[in-house]
């Protein structure tokens, strides 16, 4: 090979590699990278798929309709975790070099593992209505957000509802409340508050843990329920645990109107189960497609073949839960753009954006989701909002809202949260004091 040819080859190689190196930077500058940790496979896919679709489709709709957020496209990237903490951490390591503006772990186990990393890597963790309840304290956990309510708020709302059903909270005294839960981080999360409430209010608490490997084999737990005859059953379940629990409750003739779940079951968990009518759960947002933004999703994303969701699943409960999560992502980014004046924001900016989320009636209307959910305002101190939720009941074919918004019990939850946040920072030696300045709202 001649010297000239070698030089030309070398120059071409250098040029090609510079182009290759420049390309991702160009992409990075023109878009905002939002990874979504999802699970479309494994035992939790039944819950994971509609949520993943809802999150993806709303963000995709913003790209199609508005050209992204503030004129900047969102680079949506899914990483499959299978609801496995180990895989979730692998996903985190894979997305970190791409400078995500936040991560959405969709698993309490993964959230707990990411909390110590968030402040070091400057990547906010958005664990919407799951994760560590104490992370609601923005002064202790400036990089973690868990709106619109913690698991402890959820429990407080359920207990308040059970009190109403019994004729007053004081009437819970002497009653027996059973708690069937996923025997992992998520299900164990509300137990300290539950035990405290049992002590304070004088009801008896019976625990029925369901090990992860036994989610579809719950006959022992429900046989124990038959023996103990609790006045009410409360459930914190996920994935394959929920439909099996409903089936088993029906099998032992447990009165379904006494069976109340936290906000995670979906239509698939009850639909087709004879006798599931009457089952109740918490929820805080709308169901269905009767919102302009949902119509835009159908028109601009689903009809164009840009969604993985079947058309008839758009608007279902957990799909809309995914949409709500995506609204928080979009609002965090939009607020960050507003505060900093930058188009392409980074993790630190979005952390500030999330602290300034103010989803009021007018804002929900402006984004095409009028009356979709209650107002939500986050602050520097409060990363949760502790918003109210309502009870809905399965009527055999659809969910029917049966109560107004039920307020959590701040007088019970707040001291417990403060104590848990203090304990967390003390147990994790060297937990940094908040150094991030608060924006004036």
């Amino acid at each position, binding site marked *: 090979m001649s010297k000239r040819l070698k030089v030309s080859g070398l120059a071409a190689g250098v040029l090609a590699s510079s182009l290759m190196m420049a390309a991702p930077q160009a992409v990075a500058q023109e878009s905002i990278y939002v990874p979504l940790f999802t699970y479309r496979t494994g035992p939790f*896919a039944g819950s*994971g798929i509609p949520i993943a679709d809802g999150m993806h489709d709303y963000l995709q709709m913003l790209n199609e309709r508005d050209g992204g957020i503030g004129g900047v496209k969102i680079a949506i990237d899914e990483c499959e975790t299978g609801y496995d903490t180990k895989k979730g951490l692998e996903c985190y390591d894979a997305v970190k070099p791409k400078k995500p503006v936040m991560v959405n772990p969709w698993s309490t186990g993964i959230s707990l593992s990411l909390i110590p990393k968030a402040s070091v890597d400057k990547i906010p963790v958005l664990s919407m209505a799951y994760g560590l309840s104490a992370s609601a304290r923005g002064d202790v956990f400036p990089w973690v957000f868990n709106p619109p309510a913690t698991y402890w708020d959820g429990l407080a709302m359920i207990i308040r509802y059970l009190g109403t059903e019994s004729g007053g909270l004081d009437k819970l005294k002497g009653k027996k409340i059973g708690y069937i839960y996923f025997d992992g981080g998520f299900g164990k999360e509300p137990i300290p508050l539950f035990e405290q409430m049992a002590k304070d209010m004088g009801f008896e608490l019976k625990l029925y843990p369901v090990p992860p*490997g*036994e989610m*579809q*084999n719950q006959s*022992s*737990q429900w046989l*124990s329920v038959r023996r103990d005859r609790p006045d009410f059953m409360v459930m914190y379940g996920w994935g*394959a645990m929920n439909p099996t629990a409903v089936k088993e409750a029906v099998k032992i003739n447990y009165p379904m109107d006494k069976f109340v779940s936290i906000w995670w079951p979906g239509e698939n968990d009850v639909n087709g189960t004879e006798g599931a009518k009457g089952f109740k759960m918490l929820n805080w947002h709308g169901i269905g497609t009767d919102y302009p933004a949902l119509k835009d999703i159908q028109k601009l994303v689903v009809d164009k073949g840009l969604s993985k969701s079947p058309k008839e699943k758009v608007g279902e409960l957990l799909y809309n839960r995914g949409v709500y999560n995506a609204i928080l992502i979009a609002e965090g980014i939009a607020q960050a753009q507003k505060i900093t004046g930058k188009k392409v924001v980074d993790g630190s900016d979005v952390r500030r954006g999330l602290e300034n989320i103010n989803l009021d009636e007018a804002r929900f209307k402006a984004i095409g989701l009028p009356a979709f959910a209650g107002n939500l305002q986050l602050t520097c101190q409060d990363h949760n909002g502790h918003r109210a939720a309502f009870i809905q009941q399965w009527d055999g074919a659809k969910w029917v809202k049966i109560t107004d918004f039920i307020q959590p019990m701040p007088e019970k939850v707040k001291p417990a949260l403060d104590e848990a946040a203090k304990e967390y920072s003390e147990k994790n030696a060297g937990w940094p004091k908040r150094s991030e300045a608060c924006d004036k709202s």
Partner: protein
Amino acid sequence: MDILFKVLIDPFLQMGAMPDLFVQTIWDGFVTGVLYALIALGFVLIFKASGVFNFAQGIMVVFAALTLVGLYEMGLPAPLAVLVTLGVMFVLAVAIERVVLRPLVNQPDIILFMATFGITYFLIGLGELIFGGNPKQMITDQLYLPRGAIEVKMLGGFVQFQKIDIAAAVIAVVMIVALAVFFQKTRIGRALRAVADSHKAALSVGISLNQIWVIVWFTAGIVALVTGIMWGARSDVSFGLQVIALKALPVLILGGFTSVPGAIVGGLIIGIGEKLGEFYWGPLVGGGIESWLAYCIALGFLLFRPQGLFGDKIIERI
């Protein structure tokens, strides 16, 4: 003393105080045990014929059930969907023999064992690719399986027998009898037993190992389909069922890897044992002991019979 009372006496007092619940626990354990036994049977069949511990048996249960429901959802009538699913399991058996077993013949057992891990992950991926990850409802009515329960008043209370559980027990018994007849009375069955005893001796009398492997993997596929239908009818057909299939491990430890009666008796002991343990002793430690209690029961038996209840005693000279 209090703890001794709670462990050694109180559970038995409870059994006496609420005998209907005791019978109910035994029945629930029996049905669970029958289903464990069916899964274990799939393992035993393959282990006997090829010496391979088939880690993929659990996912075969899920794959067979998903195929059945998936085909039905695609518009096939239920009986035809069953036939086509059987066809799919046959094709799978042929493919495994051709692609996995044949090239690995004469390799150490551990290689074949690892190959079944590969089959597991391949089937998970294939199942999710074709049918998606969403749980599916078993087509119970379309398969003419009964719904509802029979409530029998007895012992001062009532015992509930789910019709689907009764059907599962009956079908399992029929299947076990059919397999026993197949093994004992048919030419292929005798060939299978010959292969199980010695590959070399079987080859020397003209038995085709390849054919036998296809037959045995197909038979394990049929067992997987039946198990998938029955378990799917009790909960849902989802990839979570694959985890339950691992319960067959303590059943095999207990019953022996090579014994069909061992799989059945082992399944029943584990099924009933873990339900009794969870129900009467579980509350003492906060519940949720079912997942590891099965292994404790199996290990307890191993202390006295290392080869399992019905397993072959292997004597190797050094």
